[in-house]
């Protein structure tokens, strides 16, 4: 996933946030004074600011920051959201949207307007006093207003491959005429750059977007193929780019690669331009050497499909380089580097081919497809059933055709399911970046360890996981971990560790975020909660209850408001997002040793391995992950306990027997355990229970169907599924049933789940 893809996701999220912002402001405008509406508006701006900060969109950040500060005043009731105030805010929302669009598509923003609004917002934030010293000073003049006259944009989207329309005359003249500086970059990646997933080609491409660029690849250090280490980096590039962004603009491209490469960026004074152009190799070389490069890698690979058809067409070169990459893994690195150079020379073309590899599809469409395919499978099964019944001759052509149909439908079903279930890896990768950036800003040294990246979850879950996770990681680094000096003083490794783990557990995905920082300062949390009127001053709270206070809206322990976090949106947003996904979040913290956040999320629509059982004439599915073992109870093993409880002895330990049919109200009296089968289950609380069912039908994979969509949540039932005969079967919620057996009624359990 390259920078642009992540950016694209950010912009898509921005659109949602902007929509929310606007609707919230309009609600306020209509006289809605619900604090939740204000919070929603605030969160939207905050999220945009956070994301924009990560991408270095300074204009957006500075504007959003001012906007946010003013909204904070509204939130804390310092500022009455009158019509006049809201007018300014709605205008600001428009400008924010403009800035977002400008950041995405280029183009310009009415700067006078945004500057006026910044001033108005600040005035509002400080009670109509325009110049207040403590105002978080907005960064002035967006970059678009750089003094240099805007030169003609480089032909980035030009169809034709035009890297060489570069004439020396132009080169000499342009900077002279427009005072556009030429920046010379010596870029030599180390192998770490590639190891960290960066790509030289992408950096070069980004540079090419800044202005007219010429690039020369130095391959002198490339050893012969047999001595080559495929992981090593051998190439270096000399880039000269004519850009109105100047040295800083170029430097920002290499921002995230700086420490993994030798980088020398300098502006070439006008009188030096001649010198640059003297360097004959510089502008003219790229295409020929690419192809020679390809020759080499192609022949090294056995020349299988002649990738190096020499043609001075960069598109062909790119394609050939791609083929070459596939052909040989040994030559892979070389081919990639060749591709890098080729692509850099034809940045426009490369960016066109890079786009379009993925498409974003409305999830509803995928769901509809999955439903239809599921139905297709069932119909096909019923059809073959009736053919078999009506056909004595088992080898008829109809039967053969049906078998083929069966295989096809299975394949379709598998592929469609694969669309939805995706590994959490992309989200985790985004987190790695977040950690790096925050560590940078806070001056802390942090290591992120991820585990279980390939755990597959439903797409919905993945998409919605990124935001809460980002918040949590920010909090973990910003608030959780101590400064390196302090850590050292405490005898800890100065480098903090944040561990992000994903795993499947009893039909849910559990994501854990652990840091080895200071843990929650319960004194401070408690005091803060009292200050914010969240709890009474004399409230007697357990450690766990205090820890959970951080999930309250408007709660923040950070003493100073920073760009990163600390406005008290954060954990409440996290909790809300997790709950919206039907998940739970909990925290456990040990002072001095760090905190662990555990999120448990359902695998909505994921395939579930279940045991199909019969209870009181009904077919139920019990998630296989919950079942430890199954056994046939014998009369001597059953012991009555108290009035209605029964225990079953399993290898000399006693385990409460739970009649599923009784708890689900399928029958009025308790079944005789000897006639049924006991499923030994492990519940989330940890205890074991023996669930009594009448019979086991078998095991199968089932597709989870929502009951809530058309009906409502049913206590004791997690979801529904459709079996091969076309009938609906219910999936048992083992935890709820076990909880019910402890004496809590099922209804009570729901209300707890809804509020907790």
């Amino acid at each position, binding site marked *: 996933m390259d920078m642009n893809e992540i950016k694209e996701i950010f912009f898509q999220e921005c659109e949602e946030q902007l929509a929310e912002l606007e609707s919230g402001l309009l609600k306020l405008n209509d006289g809605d004074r619900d604090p939740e509406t204000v919070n929603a508006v605030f969160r939207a701006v905050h999220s945009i600011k956070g994301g924009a900060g990560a991408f270095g969109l300074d204009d957006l950040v500075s504007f959003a920051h001012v906007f946010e500060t003013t909204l904070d005043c509204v939130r804390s009731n310092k500022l009455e959201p009158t019509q006049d105030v809201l007018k300014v805010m709605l205008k600001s929302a428009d400008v924010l949207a403009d800035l977002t669009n400008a950041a995405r598509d280029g183009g310009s923003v009415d700067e006078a307007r945004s500057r006026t609004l910044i001033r108005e917002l600040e005035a509002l934030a400080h009670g109509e006093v325009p110049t207040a010293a403590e105002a978080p000073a907005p960064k002035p003049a967006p970059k678009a207003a750089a003094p240099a006259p805007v030169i003609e944009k480089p032909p980035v989207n030009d169809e034709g491959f035009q890297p060489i329309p570069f004439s020396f005359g132009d080169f000499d003249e342009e900077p002279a005429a427009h005072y556009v500086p030429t920046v010379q970059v010596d870029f030599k990646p180390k192998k770490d750059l590639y190891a960290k997933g960066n790509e030289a080609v992408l950096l070069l491409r980004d540079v090419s977007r800044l202005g007219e660029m010429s690039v020369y690849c130095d391959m002198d250090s490339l050893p012969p193929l047999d001595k080559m280490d495929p992981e090593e980096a051998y190439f270096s590039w000399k880039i000269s780019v004519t850009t109105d962004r100047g040295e800083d603009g170029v430097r920002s491209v290499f921002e995230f690669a700086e420490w993994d490469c030798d980088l020398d960026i300098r502006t070439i004074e006008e009188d030096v331009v001649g010198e640059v152009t003297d360097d004959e190799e510089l502008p003219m070389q790229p295409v020929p050497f690419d192809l020679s490069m390809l020759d080499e890698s192609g022949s090294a690979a056995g020349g299988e499909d002649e990738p190096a058809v020499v043609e001075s067409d960069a598109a062909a070169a790119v394609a050939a380089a791609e083929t070459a990459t596939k052909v040989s893994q040994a030559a892979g690195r070389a081919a990639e580097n060749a591709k890098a150079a080729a692509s850099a020379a034809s940045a426009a073309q490369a960016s066109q081919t890079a786009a379009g590899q993925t498409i974003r599809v409305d999830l509803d469409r995928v769901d509809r497809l999955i439903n*239809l395919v599921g139905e297709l499978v069932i119909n096909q099964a019923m059809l073959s059933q009736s053919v078999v019944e009506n056909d004595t001759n088992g080898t008829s052509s109809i039967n053969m055709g049906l078998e083929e149909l069966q295989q096809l439908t299975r394949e379709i079903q598998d592929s469609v399911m694969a669309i939805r279930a995706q590994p959490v890896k992309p989200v985790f990768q985004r987190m790695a970046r977040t950690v790096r950036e925050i560590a940078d800003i806070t001056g802390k040294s942090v290591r992120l360890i991820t585990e279980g990246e390939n755990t597959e979850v439903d797409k919905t879950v993945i998409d919605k996981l990124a935001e809460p996770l980002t918040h949590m990681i920010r909090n973990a680094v910003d608030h959780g971990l101590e400064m390196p000096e302090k850590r050292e003083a405490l005898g800890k490794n100065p480098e903090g560790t944040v561990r992000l783990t994903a795993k499947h557990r009893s039909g849910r995905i559990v994501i854990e975020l652990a840091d080895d920082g200071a843990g929650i300062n319960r004194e401070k949390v408690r005091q803060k909660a009292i200050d914010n009127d969240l709890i009474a001053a004399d409230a007697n709270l357990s450690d766990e209850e205090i820890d959970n206070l951080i999930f309250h809206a408007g709660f923040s322990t950070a003493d100073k408001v920073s760009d990163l976090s600390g406005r008290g949106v954060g954990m409440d947003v996290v909790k809300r997002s997790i709950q919206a996904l039907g998940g739970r979040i909990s925290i456990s913290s040990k002072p001095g040793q760090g905190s662990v956040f555990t999120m448990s999320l359902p695998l909505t629509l994921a395939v579930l391995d279940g045991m199909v059982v019969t209870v009181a004439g009904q077919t139920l599915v019990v998630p296989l992950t919950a079942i430890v073992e199954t056994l046939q109870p014998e009369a001597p093993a059953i012991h009555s306990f108290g009035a209605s409880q029964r225990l079953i002895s399993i290898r000399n330990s006693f385990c409460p027997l739970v009649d599923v049919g009784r708890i689900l109200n399928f029958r009025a009296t308790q079944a005789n355990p000897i006639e049924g089968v006991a499923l030994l289950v492990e519940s989330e609380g940890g205890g074991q229970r023996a669930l009594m069912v009448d019979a086991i039908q078998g095991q199968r994979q089932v597709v989870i169907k929502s009951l809530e969509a058309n009906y409502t949540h049913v206590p004791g039932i997690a979801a529904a599924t459709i079996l091969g005969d076309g009938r609906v079967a219910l999936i048992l919620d083992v935890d709820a049933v076990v909880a019910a057996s402890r004496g809590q009624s099922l209804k009570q359990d729901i209300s707890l789940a809804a509020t907790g």
Partner: protein
Amino acid sequence: MTTYAVKNLTHGRELIAFRIGEQEFCVNIMSVREIRGWTPATSMPHAPPYVLGVINLRGAVLPIVDLSLRLGMKPAEPTVRHVIIVAQVGPKVVGLLVDAVSDILTVTNENIQPTPDIANETEKAYARGILAIEGRMICLIELDSLFPHTESEAA
């Protein structure tokens, strides 16, 4: 289709009439998605008595409501002759079990008479009026008031 809809607007509305026991009822045809035969439903634990269970409607889980019982009459004993009216109620889709679908009516507002005074609270809650068609009496039902969202969430 467009002309049909336009005609609908100018010439009143279309209703679908069905029979439960001896009585006839009707609902707005726009809320009816399809009509299908009875298939045995999977019963739900802790469901109100009028919810017979859920069935599979092309991959979606569809709750089936015994409309007779819901309207305060005696519970239905579903046979293959019974039909399920699949109707959109708010954001949800429910299946209504009725004895038979009898008619499609095109009526204007003048045809609809107000609910008589003698009706008790239950009937008043769902009845939007009565129609007299060819000597028959048909009661117009408002589905939204029969299955309010708050109720289904609390249930």
